[in-house]
């Protein structure tokens, strides 16, 4: 390809990994482009950190404002930063297409860093599509970007650190929470205890968790532990009206107009999948992640991955990986990287930060009903395909996720499988008596985000000065 603007490094995503990488790359003298889907840098964890909206900083807590220094690093970096940019294709010959401001552009790269972060694990259960049910992450985004809190009565249901965090943040904001319905299975506690060594190494995280539990306890909000059979019910208007669940032998029902759900986060692998990078099933985290070398390199020699999109580790891990992986890229491009001693100390910090992961992964492994739903529970939200329907396909001879597309259109709606992919794989594995590794995943095809014909057509008319209009 001639005439394309060329970059040494293109970074996709301006969250903690992308921001840290951008700073390293520009300091090393790489000609760098960072593309981000959001209007402002920060990713989801530090969303809107450039101009925090809440007057009361104690609501989100100090961990959020840590992002300010990363953003300052990005602001000082000498590079090209394009916001509101949707990357919809990466080709094998080191070029990519993105769309911004209604125009598409194609650029070339020597190295590409995917720092596309995580998405919340899809949590299929009866009623999860009702208006009024949304994810804990969504509530946090509304808080960070608009200072909005959910309409009451409010119930929070699910499992994982983010569930406790959003509960604390909303309580601090003065929101009345009717109940926190924790679905962490009893058996998880015993299994997690075997990983207590790592948890002790990561005592700072453990302490944070205990502080959050204490804060919830002191607030007096009802906390239902080991709940099962979660179900959201509609009112006569079709919107969410109540949530029911079982705790022990008792069935509870709570009226609510908002239900926040959460079952952990999983790597956002959509782009890597579409490129055709190798992925592997992580049995402990119950998710797919890209197959990477220790230096962060994917199965394509010029494509690297850092942060949660490489495997869930959280914001601090993402930041460190952004730095170490970029250092590797700098060296591969023949420039002088960091001193070995500096890299060693970053690697040590990384190991320390990751020490608690096995404990958390076993503790917060979702209840089976969310991983392998049954009955009329909708699995594919876009095409409205139920668990029974997906399971029944196996009897009709369907042996893989790509065939389910032809059988019932699952995965073919606008979200392109992001909300049903992992569940469809799990259900097929269940019915086939197989495992997710063997069943595989949907083939994801470009464009990975909807593009208008106008945006496509604009590719043939490159801007005269080579910059994005």
């Amino acid at each position, binding site marked *: 390809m001639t005439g394309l603007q060329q970059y040494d490094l293109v970074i996709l995503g301006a969250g903690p990994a992308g921001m840290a990488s951008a700073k390293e790359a520009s300091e090393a003298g790489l000609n760098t482009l960072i593309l981000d889907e959001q209007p402002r840098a920060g990713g989801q964890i530090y969303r809107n950190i450039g101009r925090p909206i809440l007057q009361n900083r104690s609501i989100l807590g100090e961990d959020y404002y840590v992002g300010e220094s990363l953003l300052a690093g990005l602001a000082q970096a000498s590079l090209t930063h394009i916001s509101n940019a949707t990357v919809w294709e990466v080709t094998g010959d080191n070029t990519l297409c993105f769309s911004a401001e209604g125009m598409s552009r194609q650029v070339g790269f020597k190295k590409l860093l995917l720092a596309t972060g995580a998405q919340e694990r899809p949590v299929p259960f009866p009623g999860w599509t009702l208006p009024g049910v*949304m994810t804990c992450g969504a509530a946090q985004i509304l808080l960070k970007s608009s200072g909005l809190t959910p309409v009451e009565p409010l119930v929070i249901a699910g499992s994982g650190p983010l569930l406790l965090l959003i509960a604390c943040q909303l309580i601090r904001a003065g929101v009345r929470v009717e109940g926190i319905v924790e679905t962490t299975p009893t058996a998880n506690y015993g299994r997690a205890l075997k990983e207590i060594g790592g948890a002790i190494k990561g005592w700072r995280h453990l302490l944070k968790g205990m502080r959050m539990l204490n804060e919830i306890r002191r607030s007096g909000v009802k906390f239902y532990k080991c709940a099962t059979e979660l179900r959201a019910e509609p009112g006569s*208007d079709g919107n969410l009206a109540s949530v029911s669940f079982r705790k022990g032998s008792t069935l509870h029902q709570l009226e609510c107009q908002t239900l926040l759900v959460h079952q952990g986060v999983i790597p956002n692998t959509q782009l890597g999948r579409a490129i055709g990078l190798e992925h592997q099933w992580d049995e402990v985290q119950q998710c797919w992640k890209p197959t990477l070398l220790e230096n962060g390199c994917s199965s394509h020699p010029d494509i690297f991955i850092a942060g949660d999109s490489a495997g869930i580790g959280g914001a601090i891990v993402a930041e460190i990986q952004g730095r170490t992986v970029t250092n590797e890229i700098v060296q591969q491009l023949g420039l002088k990287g960091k001193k070995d001693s500096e890299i060693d100390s970053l690697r040590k910090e990384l190991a320390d930060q990751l020490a608690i992961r096995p404990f958390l992964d076993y503790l917060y492994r979702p209840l089976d009903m969310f991983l392998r739903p049954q009955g009329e529970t909708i699995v594919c939200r876009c095409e409205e395909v139920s668990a029974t329907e997906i399971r029944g396909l196996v009897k009709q001879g369907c042996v893989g996720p790509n065939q389910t597309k032809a059988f019932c259109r699952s995965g073919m709606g606008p979200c392109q499988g992001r909300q049903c992919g992992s569940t469809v794989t799990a259900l097929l594995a269940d019915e086939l008596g197989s495992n997710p590794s063997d069943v595989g995943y949907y083939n994801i095809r470009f464009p990975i985000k909807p593009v208008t014909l106008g945006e496509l057509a604009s590719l043939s008319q490159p801007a005269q000065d080579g910059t994005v209009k």
Partner: protein
Amino acid sequence: MAADFSFNRLPCNERAEVEITIEGHKVIALEGETVAAAVMHSGLRPTRTTAVSGTGRAPYCMMGVCFECLMNIDGKPNTQACMTEVSEGMVITVQQGAREIGGDRL
């Protein structure tokens, strides 16, 4: 009386106000926020009906993943409300079922 689904606004730092129209009603949004946020503050629910069964849906993930927040924004159907920032005079309506093909905004 219809239920009030309005999300509550906490005390915020100074932001310019933007007037937009949601389902025919003029509402005030804050500069820099997304259409999905403004719509939830306005209390609109559902924000679309599905193409398959016509049931109601509302924003779910707020980060561009789930595509539940598709709305008609300034005449352009199938637009992700959570990925679009409000702008002065914007007109937003519920998307009923599948989008209609036509117009010059393909």
